[in-house]
C-alpha cells in the first residue's frame, strides 16, 4: 500500500499499463516532456520513450481522430484532453466515430481508446475549465463514461478502462486531484495522504466498470452521486445526522441499476446530486431509472441538487457549485413525513 493523491494514482495506472502492454500509447497537449498541465504523465516519456508518450498539436479533433485510427490498427491509445471543456472539437470523432466503429463494422474494427479529461469546478477555472460534460457522452450509444471520486478508484477504474475493448470517456474531477473536500472552499481540506481512500495498492488491480460502490451504508434515504459531489454529500449527511445510504456510481454507462434498485427499495427515498447543469443532466436519467424500478417503494418525491442552468461562472463559482447546505436541505425535505 502507498499513499497517493489522485494524480499520482492516475499516473501509476498509466505507468503500469505502459509497462505491461506495448500497444498502450499516451498523448495529448503538453503530456510529453512536460508531463501534462496537471502532471498526470510526468516522467512517463522519459521512461517509455517518445513514440509511446508524446505531445500532440492543439487539435482535439486530431488527437481523438488519431486515436481512433490507432485503435483500428490495434493499439490501445490513452489520449488526454487537457480540460473536458475542450473536448467539443473532438465530439464528432468520439460520438460518430469511436462510439460507432464496432457497430458499423460488425466488430471488424473497434476503438479501444480511453479518453482522459479533467472535469468539474472548484479551482476558479471559469466557463472554460470547470464544466462537467458527462451527459454529452452518456447520451451516446457505444460509449462508456467513468468518473472516479478518489485515488483508489481512479487507479483501478483507469486500468479497467484501458483494458476495456470499448471507448471509455474517463472524466477526472480536478478539484479532487490533490485532496477531497466537503464543498466548503473556505474551510481546510484533508489531503489524500490523510484520507482512507488515499490508500492505493501497488501494482495492477482493477475496479470493474459498471459497478457502483456504497460509500456510506444507511437506511433512511439513498443518495445517488459521483465525482466531487461524493465528498460534498458526505459532509452534508454528517451534518444532518440522517442515516443516508450514499452510492458513488463511479460508472454512469453502463449504470449499476441493480445497486440503485436495491438501495432505493430499502430506503424508499432518493436524493440525486451532481455538479453538472440540471436540464437534461444525468440526474434526469437517474430519476427516470428510479421511478421505473422503484416507483411503488417511493415515500417521497425524488430530490435533485445540481449546478444551475447557467454557464460556469468565475467570481460566483461557490454559488454555482452545489453547496453542502443545499444537499442538507434536500435531505431534510425528502425525509419530511
Amino acid at each position: 500500500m502507498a499513499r497517493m493523491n489522485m494524480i499520482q494514482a492516475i499516473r501509476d495506472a498509466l505507468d503500469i499499463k505502459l509497462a505491461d502492454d506495448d500497444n498502450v500509447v499516451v498523448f495529448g497537449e503538453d503530456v510529453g516532456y512536460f508531463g501534462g498541465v496537471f502532471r498526470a504523465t510526468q516522467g512517463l516519456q522519459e521512461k517509455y520513450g517518445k513514440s509511446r508518450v508524446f505531445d500532440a498539436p492543439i487539435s482535439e479533433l486530431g488527437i481523438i481522430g488519431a486515436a481512433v485510427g490507432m485503435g483500428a490498427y490495434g493499439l490501445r491509445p490513452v489520449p488526454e484532453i487537457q480540460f473536458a471543456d475542450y473536448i467539443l472539437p473532438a465530439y464528432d470523432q468520439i460520438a460518430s466515430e469511436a462510439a460507432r466503429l464496432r457497430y458499423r463494422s460488425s466488430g471488424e474494427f473497434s476503438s479501444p481508446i480511453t479518453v482522459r479529461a479533467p472535469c468539474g469546478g472548484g479551482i476558479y477555472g471559469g466557463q472554460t475549465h470547470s464544466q462537467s460534460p458527462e451527459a454529452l457522452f452518456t447520451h451516446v450509444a457505444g460509449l462508456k463514461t467513468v468518473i472516479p471520486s478518489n485515488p483508489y478508484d481512479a487507479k483501478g477504474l483507469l486500468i479497467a478502462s484501458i483494458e476495456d475493448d470499448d471507448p471509455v470517456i474517463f472524466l477526472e474531477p480536478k478539484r479532487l486531484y490533490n485532496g477531497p473536500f466537503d464543498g466548503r472552499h473556505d474551510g481546510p481540506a484533508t489531503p489524500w495522504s490523510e484520507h482512507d481512500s488515499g490508500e492505493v495498492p501497488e501494482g495492477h488491480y482493477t475496479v470493474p466498470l459498471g459497478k457502483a460502490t456504497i460509500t456510506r451504508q444507511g437506511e433512511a434515504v439513498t443518495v445517488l452521486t459521483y465525482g466531487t459531489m461524493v465528498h460534498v454529500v458526505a459532509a452534508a449527511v454528517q451534518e444532518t445526522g440522517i442515516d443516508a445510504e450514499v452510492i458513488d456510481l463511479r460508472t454512469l454507462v453502463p449504470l449499476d441499476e441493480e445497486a440503485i434498485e436495491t438501495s432505493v427499495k430499502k430506503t424508499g427515498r432518493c436524493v440525486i446530486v451532481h455538479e453538472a447543469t440540471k436540464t437534461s443532466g444525468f440526474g434526469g436519467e437517474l430519476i427516470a431509472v428510479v421511478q421505473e424500478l422503484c416507483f411503488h417503494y417511493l415515500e417521497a418525491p425524488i430530490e435533485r441538487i445540481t449546478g444551475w442552468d447557467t454557464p460556469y461562472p468565475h467570481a460566483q463559482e461557490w454559488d454555482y457549485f452545489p453547496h453542502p447546505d443545499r444537499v442538507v436541505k434536500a435531505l431534510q425535505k425528502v425525509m419530511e413525513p
Partner: protein
Amino acid sequence: MTETKPLSLQVPEPSSRPGDKPDFSYIDLSAAGTTRRPEVDCAANSMRDLAFELVKVLDKNGDAVGPWAMDLDDAMLLKGLRAMEKTRAFDERMQMAQRQGKTSIYVQCRGEEAIACGQRLALKKGDMCFPTYRQQGLLIAQDFPIVDMICQIYSNAKDKLGGRSLPFFYSEREHGFFSISGNLGTQFMQAVGWAMASAIKGDTRIASGWIGDGASAEGDFHAALVFASVYKPPVVLNVVNNQWAISSFQGIAGGQAANFACRGHGFNIPSLRVDGNDFMAVYAASSWAIERARRNLGPTLIEWVTYRAAAHSTSDDPTKYRPKDELEAWPMGDPIERLKNHMIHKGIWDEERHTALKQELKDEVRAAAKEAESYGTLGKGPVPGIGEMFEHVYKEMPPHLLKQRKQAGV
C-alpha cells in the same frame, strides 16, 4: 481622405449553370509528359511546382509519355482496364437495383474509376485504405467477391454488417478497406492515426486516406495535414477533386482561391496534382507516394483532378444545378476509354476483345446480383432480424441493452 464604400460578400459561382455552355477553362491542363518527376526523397520545398502542374502520362494519341510513364506490363494494364470496367458495370447494376427497390440508396463513381483502381493496384496487401463512399474500386480492383458487396447493399440475410449500416458502407479489414463513415472527412484524420500506429510499431504497412474536394473544408482535413506534417507517418493523402459536392462546385470548398494540392505547401508536405482520369498517371503518382511512405519519408498529398460523371447519389438530380452536357465538355476524357485506347495503340488490345470483356463483366455482375437477390433485398426481404440491431454496440452487451432487446421483442 479615401471614401469607404459599403462592403460586400463574395460567394463563388461555378463557370456554368443549367442552360449555360459548359466551361472548364478554369482547369489548368498541362500537356501529357511535360511535368517533371522528382526523386521520391527530394525536399518538399523543392517540388512546389508539382502542385500547380498536372501529372499526365497518356496523350491524345494514346501514347504513354514523359518521366511519369512507368513501364507497366500488359497484364497490369489489363488488370486496370478490367477493374475499371467491372466497377462501372457494378455501378450500373446497383443504380438499377436501387430504382427497382432492392436497396434504399446507391452512389456511383462513374468517371472516377481510375483513381481507386489505380492506387489499389499500386498498394500492397496489408496496407490500409480509409475510403469515402466513392472508392468501391478499391475492393473491386483486388477481385473482392462482388456478391458480398451486393449482399451488403441489399441489407439481406448474408449482409455481413447485419443491416446496421447504409448500403455501400463496406468494412473489409482483410482487404485493407476501413469501415466507411457517412460523416465526411473523419476517416482522413484516422488514416494519419493508423499510419502513426504503424510507425510506432515499426511495421512496414502504410495507410491511404481519402477525401473529396467538398469535405476537404472539414477540420479533419486540416488536422490530418497538421499531424501528418508533425509526425511524418507513412500515409498517402488523396483528395479526389471531382468538381462537385452534391450541388456545390469545388469553389465553395475554396478551390477557386487555391487548388487542393497546394494546401500541402503550408505544411511542407510533398504535393502532387494529377490527372485522375489517366490510369497510368494514377498508378505512377500513387507508386511515387507509396514508395515515399514505405521508405519512411513521410506523407504525400495528391489532388486527383477528375469529374463526377454521375449524380451524387440516387437521391440527387444534377440537371438542377449543372449543365446537362457538362460531361461531354469535360477536357480530361473518360478513364476507361483512355486506357483502352492506349492498349489498342500499343497493339495489345482491340475493340472486339473489349466488347467481349464488357459483356463478360456485365454477365458476371448480373449473376452476382441474382445470387445476392436470392438471399434477399431491402425491398422484399428477408432482412437481418431485430436482434442484429442490438449487436456490436459494445463488445459485450451491457444489462441495459439486454433489457431493451427484450422489450423490443427479441
